């Protein structure tokens, strides 16, 4: 998978490049708007990671220019600006996702993967992972062929994991999917729901979810 990073900060760029390369991404790194446009004119990418504050221009202007010229590559914006307005502006201009700083590498990878998948896969109505099965239309879930008794929130939570099996999902990402807000991260609401979901699915010695400290959770 080919990813273009547009990041002027030397250290941050290095760490992101190294982190993504370790996960077998092919990473190109541009440090200015001009460099980024050069990369894009030479080859195509599966995803672009774009920081907003660049030395020779604003990332949003760059993105606008790309979208106007017909560039369709999925773009994740990295930004320290995180008001709702900034977010909306970014998404309006044509970003596919908006990741506020500081982020975890796991989260960046999860977002890139979900963007790439959004482009390619056909939507299904049934998801299956291990012995869990959910019906996206009926909003029901089965475990070992037994219908699970889940509340709305528990189902929504399970669905987020089933959409991203095996991936570490950050608390922010989960909160955004369920409450479409990241305020709730301040509380332990997510942990409470996770423990309730676990109590309905897991038996001693048979873990289904893994807690990744400081990041989030993973469906294994």
């Amino acid at each position, binding site marked *: 998978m080919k990813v273009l990073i547009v990041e002027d*900060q030397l*250290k*941050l760029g290095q*760490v*992101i490049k*190294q*982190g993504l390369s370790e996960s077998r991404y092919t990473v190109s790194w541009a440090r200015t708007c001009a460099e980024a446009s050069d990369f894009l004119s030479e080859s195509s990418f599966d995803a672009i990671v774009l920081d907003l*504050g660049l030395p020779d221009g604003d990332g949003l202007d760059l993105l606008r220019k790309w979208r106007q010229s017909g560039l369709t590559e999925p773009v994740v914006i990295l930004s*320290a*600006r*995180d*008001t*709702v*307005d900034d977010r909306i502006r970014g998404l309006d201009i044509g970003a596919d996702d908006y990741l*506020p*700083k*500081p*982020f*975890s*590498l*796991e989260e960046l990878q999860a977002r890139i993967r979900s963007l790439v998948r959004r482009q390619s896969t056909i939507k299904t109505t049934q998801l299956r992972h291990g012995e869990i099965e959910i019906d996206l239309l009926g909003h029901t879930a089965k475990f070992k062929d037994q219908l699970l008794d889940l*509340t*709305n*929130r528990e189902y929504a939570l399970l669905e987020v994991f089933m959409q991203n099996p095996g991936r570490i999902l950050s608390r922010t990402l989960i909160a955004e999917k369920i*409450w*479409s*807000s990241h*305020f*709730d*991260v*301040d*509380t*332990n*609401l997510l942990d*409470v*729901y996770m*423990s*309730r979901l676990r109590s309905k699915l897991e038996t001693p010695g048979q873990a289904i979810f893994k807690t990744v*400290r*400081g*990041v989030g959770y993973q469906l294994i």
Partner: protein
Amino acid sequence: MRTIGARIAIWYALAAILSLIGLSIGGYILLERHLFDGLDLLNESEFQQISARLGPEYQNISEPFIETRIRETTELASTLFYIEILKPEGGIIFRSSNLKSLQIPVDAELSKFNALIDEIGEVRVATFPMLPFRTIIATPLQPVRNVMQSYVKVCAALLMGMLITSLVIGLVISRMLLTPIRNIRDTANRIRFDNLSERIQVNKAEDEVTDLALLLNQMFDRIEASFNQVNRFTAEASHELKTPLTLIRLHAESMVRDEHISNKNRETAQNLIEEVDRLTRIIENLLFLSRADAQAVSLDLQANSINAFLENFKQDAVVLAEHSGKTFELEKFESREICFDPKSMRQVLLNLLTNAIQASPENGKILLKSFFVDDKWHLTMEDQGAGLTSAQCEKVFGRFVRFSNLKHQSQGSGLGLAICSSIVQLHNGNIHAINSDLYSGLKIEIAIPI
């Protein structure tokens, strides 16, 4: 604005009416005098006619002859004039028959005056010397009084007409005068943080209103400048703080991933990540507060059903409370659609709930009430915790406020309630803390105008 317009109109009408009243009174006096003069002239001409009739030799004519002569002249105008001719030593030579036996009053000093004769009424009297006699001629005042009465009626009608037209004209004028001020008000009202660069249109005419508009524009310039400064500051602070935090976090993550690292160091790196998260949240909260102080937070205001919003919150609140062995209850009354930002209000309720859960004793109850009084949406959250002293209640919404008698507070950033307060204020509402009268603990009261 409306009152100034009305005041201008009323002042204008008052001024117009008062001047009309003044003019009418002046006119009344002048007209009356003019009419009196006319009567005096009539009296005089009658006298001249009498004296002409008598001729210059009247002193030699016998009294009965005088009587006959005058009567011949005057009986023709018997309705118009009352005539007496007095002898110098007293007694009457002639008295017109329309007087019957009545006497015309005589004034010792004035030769022309008004007098009242019983049965006949008011008259204008003139005395003329016709030595050695004195001729007194009176003519009724009724025609003058009639004219004056009509004059008063006409004036009253004019005044009514004037009152109405001057009020209408006053309103139109005040509206015209206030139009530039109204424009200023509308523009000033429209200028909010998302169009701070809009300015009041300044007319070319250099008058007081232009001065006011210029002054306001200067004020908006300053507000815009300080507003931009805050925005720039928060954006820069955000960037300057969060970029290194991202680096710390990414490095710590790579340490956690490193297989060759000792468990102790991995634990340290984990703690580092958690502290970065905590710090990030504090930075975000502080930036939010500084933006809210500068009124630079945009609320996502939309009409929402209150009860649907509360039910949605209740789902999570019940679970959160249950998890800590507490119970949450929602008491809601009337549901309405009102404008508010559901995300930020949810944050307010979550912050309050988190505090309440931490303050509550085991099995404690937390009660959220929603009701409407006086066109305000009231929300109260009560717990059964230890509560606060009234001095602490005053300070509890401050920033980084921690009370040493509360153990649980050490977990938070000390900004949760400050943020609640900011969000409620952004909704033009108010929030305060008191001791619960229902429960033993703290009660937070929020009131948001609809």
